[in-house]
């Protein structure tokens, strides 16, 4: 690769690292006060992955996941204030994914400002970019990040309200509402407001919400409803079919379940997406649905077996889905095994059969993932 092509990567890497460090160290300044009433923490989620396919001839830009990826999480908290920065450095990108400053108004109730992951995603609010924490290598197609070809905006820049409150003696209620600037629709897909990078501006409103019931206030099991409204401004340079459409309204209605019992976990979610095209000569509204069920079973010797079924309806008739023909899986069946070894390291094998709008193919993935320290 010519040397010049490395420069932007290095510049972004340097800039992201410096700014992430500065943003966290800025709120760390009160560290001199007595009694250690402040805390900082950091984690790096690492992964390396290889993918192979059969029955799939055309290899587009989105047909390979990153070969190597590091997700750097920095957190800092004082009595009532919290700061969080999550930066992904991979062979494909360097991005500050989350940068939030929050105040804890009461116990387990936070108001955040900044760029955050929208709360109406069942998968992403659980795993974020921490590859090691998700059992499967891949994420469900409907939960993909914007720059991986996702169809639902996953980042909002604005305010996020989150609360987790007890219901009775053991149960709990989790409510999260995010509102702010959403994504643009560009020829490359959805583009959220980017931090430390140029933005084309005029991002319109997004708000999303989750209301979840927790059978055990402190446990990982939850079930709830997911709602979202995104106004996707169509960038001037977008595809010709959108040339007379200034923006598209996307409404999302969903439900999810994340059930954990000894040795078993089931995570399932379903989304109904309604799209309204605005502007001169706007086309009739359209809709599609997508969902998945993933079951995991822990075996002896730190092995975990998992399987996932993804499906969709009406996606083949949607012009919006057609934008992501190379990334959206209309149907996918995956089976895999994960082996946790050493301290916080795992090897995962995932085999899948996928149907997209234009292709059917089989896929084989092998991943090493870890978290330090």
């Amino acid at each position, binding site marked *: 690769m010519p040397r010049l092509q490395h420069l932007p990567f290095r510049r972004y890497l340097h800039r992201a690292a410096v700014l992430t460090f500065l943003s966290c160290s800025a709120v760390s300044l009160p560290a001199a006060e007595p*009694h*250690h*009433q402040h*805390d*900082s*923490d950091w*984690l790096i989620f690492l992964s390396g992955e290889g993918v192979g396919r059969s029955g799939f001839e055309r290899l587009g830009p989105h047909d390979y996941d990153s070969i190597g990826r590091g997700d750097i*999480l920095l*957190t*800092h*908290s004082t*009595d*009532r204030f*919290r*700061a*969080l920065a*999550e930066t992904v450095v991979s062979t494909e990108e360097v991005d500050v994914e989350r940068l*939030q400053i*929050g105040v*804890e108004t*009461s*116990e*387990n109730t*936070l108001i955040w400002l900044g760029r955050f992951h929208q709360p109406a995603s069942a998968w992403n*609010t*659980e*795993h*974020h970019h*921490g590859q*090691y*924490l998700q059992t499967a290598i891949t994420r469900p197609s409907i939960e993909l990040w914007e720059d991986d070809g996702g169809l639902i905006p996953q980042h909002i820049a604005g305010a996020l309200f*989150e609360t*987790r409150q007890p219901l009775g003696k053991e149960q709990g209620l989790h409510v999260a509402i995010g509102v702010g600037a959403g994504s643009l629709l560009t020829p490359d897909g959805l583009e959220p407001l980017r931090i430390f990078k140029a933005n084309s501006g005029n991002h319109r409103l997004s708000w999303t919400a989750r209301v979840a019931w927790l059978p055990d206030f*402190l446990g*990982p099991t939850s079930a709830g409803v997911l709602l979202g409204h995104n106004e996707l401004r169509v960038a001037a340079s977008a595809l010709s079919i959108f040339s007379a459409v200034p923006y598209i309204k996307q409404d999302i209605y969903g439900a999810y379940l994340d059930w954990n019992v000894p040795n078993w976990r089931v995570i399932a979610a379903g989304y109904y997406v309604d799209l309204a095209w605005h502007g001169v000569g706007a086309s009739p509204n359209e809709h599609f649905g997508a969902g998945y069920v993933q079951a995991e079973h822990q075996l002896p010797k*730190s092995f975990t077996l998992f399987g996932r079924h993804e499906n969709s309806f009406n996606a083949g008739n949607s012009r919006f889905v057609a934008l992501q023909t190379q990334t959206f899986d209309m149907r996918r069946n995956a089976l895999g095994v994960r082996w*946790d070894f050493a301290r*916080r390291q795992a090897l995962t094998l995932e085999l899948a059969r996928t149907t997209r709008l234009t292709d059917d193919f089989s896929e084989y993935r092998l991943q090493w993932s870890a*978290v330090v320290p």
Partner: protein
Amino acid sequence: MERRGAVKMRATLLAAALAFSAVAAPARAEESVALIVSAASPITRLDSLEVRKLFLGFSVIRDGRSLRALRNSSNERIKQIFLQNVVAMSESTYEHRLLSIALQSGQTRPVEFSSRTQLLEAVANDPAAVSFAFSSEVAGNPRIKVLRLLWHD
């Protein structure tokens, strides 16, 4: 010859008893685990749910101040007692849960101490700190306040 043998046997038994009591003494002293805070801390009680919340990475606020959990990993036995009786999880599940909560909510994970001395020093110096230790290790320490027993034999 018999008398000399009897004396020798008595001496052997005495030595064995002393040796046994020397070994057994710490084990008897380590028969309970106490929930501890700094002597300067205004905290007077924390119930089981609050302790579990704190060590699972959720926030617990008292008098407008967020409490800080400090993990005692100074020896394997107290680690196991903590995992079984306080958070009721295997070590891998607990670690996974802490990582998830840190990633999800930006909550800092409980600081882990492998040195008992450093742990007690950190607790003594921080009125917001909450930890646990064998009762025998904190008995008579004027800088440490015992809230209650978390576990006993």
